[in-house]
Structure formats: structure tokens, C-alpha cells
């Protein structure tokens, strides 16, 4: 029994975090908000590929590094922490794991040449629709020419979202929605932790009534509640990743647990973060809103907390 990460996993996480801190900071995100499809936004994509992120879970024989879901969820949480507006979860976690292990596309995914986006069901929004080469809808994948896209204005402008309707049979995948749920849960844990951390910094700094607002008990309790939700969601994500890696019989249930916990925790953290920022959180002149809106887009994606609870009810023998 060892509930933790090994040195290789932590080193890779830290390397990705370092790259993101350097190349995907606030100025980058601000630009991506108004230009989500532009080259400055996408310049980070090949750099991530060079570091091996897109190929993290791809077999070495196909140009990847053969890491596991545990490592992937750690890395995805880092992308959530900086609200990275690129479809890494969709490409590196969903496509890379749901394609057959010898699929020819894997090499192009690992090298960063190919961008894949994903959504759980027909007619639901998928991100990065302009730049994506391939579109996953549930457990099938389609070439760009084989889908019709209806661009929509997402509350999160960096998403560049479109509703996807397949126009062809597509390629079958294995476990695309499961992978999507787990990857999204990992991102949400990172977003939730960032919301708590940003709020803590803000309330330590912001003075009212002659003291930092973070010294008021109501603010303390709000943030303790946010941290509580996020920190109890996090281990459910790592455990689900480990079960996916080991092919545990309960892996599906654990993924549902992770997504339900992460969705609820991130929504709670978002609500509290906004309240603790007061008016400063309520303007798009300030950066908090990037993380809030990411939560609102991702919490219902790949199954809401409720839909995963319904699934667990069946798995627990409680369905009527």
C-alpha cells in the first residue's frame, strides 16, 4: 500500500508545471481569451509535445513514453492550475488511450502534429473546434471533414467551442467517455486548487476595516470549505487513475466517483472564490474569471456529478 507518486512521476509533473509557468501565464491567457485560435495561443502545443506530454500515455514503440494514468492526471491537474486553453486532455488522455494501441495516428499525436478534441455526446460542445484535426464524440472518432460544426459562444471564450454532429461512421474507440471523465476530473482538481490558492492570496492582501479580509472568520470558513472539497476530491482522482492503470474491476465506478467529486468541488471552489474576491472577481478586467468559466464549462462535461451518481447507484445495486 502506497498512496503517492514516484520520483519519475513527480519530476515530469514539475517539468510540465515549469513550462506552463514560463509560457502560459496571465498575459498568455489574456491573449488566448481574445484569440483562442491564434498562433500565440498554440505556440505552447509543440513545446508540450517536445516535453513528451501529448505522448505521455502512448507506447514507446509509437513515439510516446508509455507513462500511466496516474502520471497523466498529475500533469492534467497542472494544466488546470494555469487554465491552459488547449485540448491536452482530449488529445493526450482521451485520444491517446482510446485509440487501438497500434493505431497509426498515435505517432502524430505524440509528435504534436495532430490535435484531437472530444465531447461525450452528439450535439454537445467540444473545445478547440477551429484547430482540431480529429473529433471524438463518445466512443467514436471522426476526421474534420466528417463532422458538421456549429460554432457556439462558450462562456469560456478560450474554449473556441462548437457543437459537433458526425456525418460519417467514424472510427470506433475503446473507453473514450471513461477517459474523458477521468481527464476532466483531473483538470478540475487543478482548477479548483488554483481557485483556492488565488483566493487565499487575494484575501491576505485585500484590506477592509483596517485588516486583511482574510482575517474575518466568515472568509476563513468559506476558504476552509473550498479547500476541504477540493482536497477530498483529489485522492479520488489519483485512485481512479491507478485503477484504470491496473484494470481494476471497479475502475468505472471509481472514475464516476472522481468526476462527481471533482465537478462538485470545483463548482464549490468557484462560487467561494468569487465571493471572497468580491467585486474584484466580478469583472473580466481581473484574471479570476478565466478559472471560474473553465469550471462552468468542464463541470457538466463528460457527465455531470448527478449523472455519475446515477451510474454509481447502479454499480452499488441501488438503481430501481
Amino acid at each position: 500500500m502506497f498512496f503517492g507518486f514516484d520520483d519519475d512521476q513527480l519530476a515530469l509533473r514539475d517539468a510540465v508545471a515549469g513550462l506552463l509557468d514560463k509560457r502560459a501565464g496571465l498575459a498568455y491567457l489574456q491573449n488566448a481569451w481574445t484569440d483562442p485560435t491564434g498562433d500565440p495561443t498554440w505556440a505552447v502545443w509543440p513545446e508540450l509535445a517536445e516535453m513528451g506530454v501529448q505522448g505521455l500515455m502512448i507506447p514507446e514503440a509509437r513515439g510516446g513514453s508509455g507513462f500511466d494514468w496516474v502520471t497523466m492526471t498529475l500533469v492534467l491537474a497542472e494544466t488546470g492550475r494555469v487554465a491552459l486553453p488547449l485540448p491536452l486532455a482530449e488529445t493526450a488522455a482521451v485520444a491517446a488511450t482510446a485509440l487501438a494501441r497500434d493505431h497509426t495516428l498515435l505517432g502524430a499525436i505524440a509528435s504534436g502534429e495532430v490535435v484531437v478534441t472530444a465531447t461525450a455526446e452528439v450535439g454537445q460542445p467540444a473545445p478547440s473546434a477551429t484547430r482540431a484535426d480529429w473529433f471524438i464524440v463518445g466512443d467514436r472518432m471522426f476526421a474534420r471533414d466528417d463532422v458538421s460544426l456549429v460554432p457556439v459562444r462558450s462562456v469560456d471564450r478560450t474554449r473556441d467551442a462548437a457543437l459537433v454532429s458526425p456525418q460519417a461512421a467514424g472510427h470506433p474507440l475503446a473507453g473514450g467517455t471513461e477517459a474523458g471523465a477521468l481527464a476532466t476530473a483531473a483538470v478540475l482538481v487543478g482548477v479548483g486548487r488554483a481557485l483556492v490558492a488565488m483566493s487565499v492570496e487575494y484575501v491576505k492582501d485585500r484590506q477592509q476595516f483596517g485588516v486583511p479580509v482574510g482575517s474575518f472568520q466568515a472568509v476563513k470558513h468559506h476558504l476552509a470549505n473550498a479547500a476541504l472539497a477540493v482536497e477530498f476530491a483529489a485522492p479520488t482522482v489519483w485512485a481512479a487513475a491507478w485503477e484504470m492503470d491496473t484494470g481494476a474491476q471497479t475502475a468505472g465506478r471509481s472514475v464516476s466517483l472522481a468526476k462527481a467529486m471533482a465537478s462538485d468541488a470545483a463548482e464549490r471552489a468557484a462560487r467561494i472564490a468569487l465571493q471572497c474576491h468580491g467585486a474584484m472577481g466580478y469583472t473580466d478586467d481581473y484574471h479570476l474569471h478565466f478559472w471560474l468559466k473553465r469550471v462552468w464549462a468542464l463541470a457538466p462535461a463528460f457527465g455531470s456529478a448527478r449523472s455519475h451518481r446515477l451510474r454509481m447507484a447502479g454499480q452499488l445495486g441501488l438503481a430501481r
Partner: protein
Amino acid sequence: MDLTWSAEDEDFRAEARSWLEANVPRPALASGDTRDGFARHLDWEKRLFENRWAVVSWPEEFGGRGASIWQWLIFEEEYYRAGGPQRVTQNGIFLLAPTVFEFGTAAQQARILPRMAAADDLWCQGWSEPGAGSDLAGITSRAERTDGGWSLTGQKIWTTRGAFCTHLFGLFRTDPDSSRHKGLTYFLVPLDAPGIEVRGFGRLDGDEGFAEVFLDGVEVTDDDILGGVGQGWSVAMATTGSERGLTLRSPGRFTAVVDRLISLAAAEQTSDPLLIDRVVQGWMDAEAYRLFTLQAVTSLAGGAKPGAESSLNKIWWSEMDIRLHETALALQGPAAEIDDGWMKGFEFALSGPIYAGTNEIQRNIAAERVLGLPRS
């Protein structure tokens, strides 16, 4: 106890309903928190005024109908039932006007109110400052005595629709040696005066609904003071009562939201009993708010002053409003991320627990002034 409306009130309702049904613009106007949308909303305000629906509860001499507070409630109910546009004049009508009625001289009332009702003057609120939010008494913008009056200098922020308005009402420190609640004065300031710069900026949803107002030696006169030099805090608190309490959020706003929510549940063919239960809870919360308001208005109509209970009122409607919109988003599933309709309503609702005194402050007030717990 008599929860029926008088024949007169029913006539008033019928007249309002029929006018609104015939006149509410279709399709709905663009957001009044954008420059274009604001102009279209202004046209609507003038139409309301011409038909004497702009300020129904004001005396006729100022453009109203002398309607009772009950009729005002009825009008609001009908207005939101009909899907009437957001009231871009509301900060003047609902926040400043009650203060002018209470503290203004006859000359001030005549100068301010009819032009406000006609949407000729558009008022925004200049209270918050970068260092004075929840802690409003931390205001540092100052007014210095000059020969002819006063010179205003400082910075106001979070001024709703400030970039589209013509006038500002705000608090300034007239006694440089004062601190906190003392030494403040309530000023009325034309935004085209020399020395004023207004910078609009985005709300959470990106609409330019906020402004910063920079004042640098802006000249105003004694006539621009409401309620006396140094009386600003107590004068402003009258407005705060309005902002938190009944006037800003009539029950009709929420019963209309609930009606739309029930329609959405039907349109989405929701079969999830949890979602249906949340819709029912939403209806219950709005109905409780309506009944609580009828009880409060009975008390006001009997001559009582609005008190600290308005804190309970504000907590209720603001948190209910978020829950109603969260329920709607849950009904929509992943498509909820599309930024129109309910998502925009949700973003707007999120301001409820923040503005006009955060709900943390409201809970302090409720505990201290309604329940009598000790101040800390």
C-alpha cells in the same frame, strides 16, 4: 389577513398588463450594459415615461401615478411577467429618488425628479472606491470648500453603467480630519463637469456594465448637496435600506424567473426527479419570498420604517436567484456553457451576494441588529 386585491388594484393590474403586452419590445433588446443596448433601453424608458409607467409610485407632479406600494408590487409583477426590459434607470429611481424624497429641498426635487423620471438625466451611484467596498466608511474621495462651493477629487469604482450615465450621486469626505462614518457628505455631480474622466470596464460577462470615475477638482455648489454637509452617512443609509430591501428586488422578478424555469423543465422534457425537485424548491423559495414581502409591505403600509430585516430579505433573494439559475443550467446539461440566456442570467445573479453590501455583511447585520448579538 386578507390576501385578495381590491377592485381598484385589479383594475390597475389589468391596465398595466394590457399596456405591457402591447408595448414590451419583441424580440428582447440587447443588453443594457452595452453601449448599443443602452441606447435602445433609453428609448424604452422614454416610452414608459410618456405612458406614465416609469415611476408609478411617484406623485403625479413628478411623472408618476401616485400608485400605492401595493400597486407598485403589482406593476413589477406584471412588468417581469411580460418580459419587460431591464430598467437602466433603476439606480436613480430606486436608490437616489427615495433619498431625494426624504432629504431633498423642494427645489432639488423639482430639479432632479422629473428629469430622472423622463430618463433625461441618468444617474449612477458613486459610493465604492478602490479601498472602500464592504467597508464603505473607508471613503477617501474628498470635497474641499471653495469660494463658490466645493471641489471634488478622488476615484469611484464599480459604478454600474457609469459610462452611459449623465450624473453621479456619491459620498465625499468634506471634513479632512474626519474618519469612518463622520465628515461625509452626499453630493450630486454632473458627469460632464470639467475634471471628470469616466472609464467603462467589463462585468463578469464582459459587458461594459461597470465604470471607474476619476474626479480631479470637479466644481459643484451647495445646491448639489443632499441632506446637509457632514450628514452623508445617514443620508446614504436611507438609500442602502432601499438597495437591500424591497425596491430593488420585487418578488415579481423571481416569480417570472420561476415561470421560465418551469417552462424550461417542460421544454427539456426532464425526467430526472432530482432536477424536478430542484425546480419545485425554486418555486417554493420564490413563493416564500413573495409571501414574506407581502407581510413586510403590510407593515410598511401601516407606517413602519424598513429596518434591519431587509438584510434577511437580501440574503434570501440573492441566494435564491443563484439557485434558480443553477437549476436551469443543470437542466441544460453541457450545453449550458453557451453564453446566452440562462448562463448570462447566472453570471448576473452571482453579483447578488456581492453588491449592495456582501451577504457576509448582511449576515452580520441580521445577527447584530435583528437578533441582538454583540458587535465584535
